[in-house]
């Protein structure tokens, strides 16, 4: 079995109003060095197979079809074997 961790990020060109709002909070707290805050998604799940290739294929398809929208987001993932 594998544990998959998927991170979905908005493309750099896509506006991120949430990131902008959070950064305003950072400024209020005095974190004057904080720049370019972007908010994305972190998704984890298990893939019930012992074949890493099958796991990879499934995670990639799941990420392309549902977890991210290719028009505005990119994704990256890692797989970790679990017992």
């Amino acid at each position: 079995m594998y544990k998959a961790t998927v991170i979905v990020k908005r493309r750099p060109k896509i506006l991120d109003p949430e990131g902008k709002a959070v950064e305003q909070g950072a400024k209020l707290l005095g974190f004057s060095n904080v720049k370019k805050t972007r908010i994305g998604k972190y998704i984890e799940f298990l893939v019930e197979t012992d074949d890493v290739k099958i796991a990879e294929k499934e995670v990639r398809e799941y990420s392309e079809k549902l977890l991210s929208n290719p028009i505005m987001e990119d994704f990256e993932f890692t797989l970790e074997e679990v017992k």
Partner: protein
Amino acid sequence: MKPKFGVVVFPGSNCDHDAYFAVKKILGYNAEFLWHKEKDLKRSDVIVLPGGFSYGDYLRTGAIARFSPIMESVYSFAENGGIVIGICNGFQILLELGLLPGIMMRNESLKFVCRDVYLRVENKKSIFTKSVAKNILKIPVAHGEGNYFAEEKTLHELESHGQVLFRYVSRDGKTGEEFNPNGSLNNIAGIINKKKNVMGLMPHPERCCDPLLGNTDGSLLFKSVAENL
């Protein structure tokens, strides 16, 4: 013959009854609810994807609803020229499904906007607007994610093919950022596909059909569809 409107119900739809009430009780057409787990469109002439928060808007608005069994049938129906109207969340579902181009982002203000807006009808050659005599419509919006975005090439195509159906404007039809409730590109409020049989719009026409409410501009769109089917 009276046309039949099929109103799709997803878990989290909350404008389904308004849409049903508007077309059936106020305008006198046939209407039936279509449960998202079914595949049968029950011989509907027009499919309405109503507003709401299907699947809690989790992941992205409309992202999960677009995989509902009924949407396979809606997709084929649209591909074969069937008339589909997506209102608010319904519009977002059509974008995720790929029947309409582009995406919806969080409102620029980060606030949920709920108020009347003015729309300029940009194209009167579509079935949705052919019989609409007015040039400016007053219709309410109610959404947190109506900030329409498309890549430059797509936007250019939309504009040059007359696919931008409605734009947010002032009461007297002037364009300007101050009349844009959500930050959408080019003040876009509603678009149609290339084949001109699928419409998505953020404002809620079903909420202004009853004369008792003092505004019936929304009914003009449903009437236009019914009269030109």
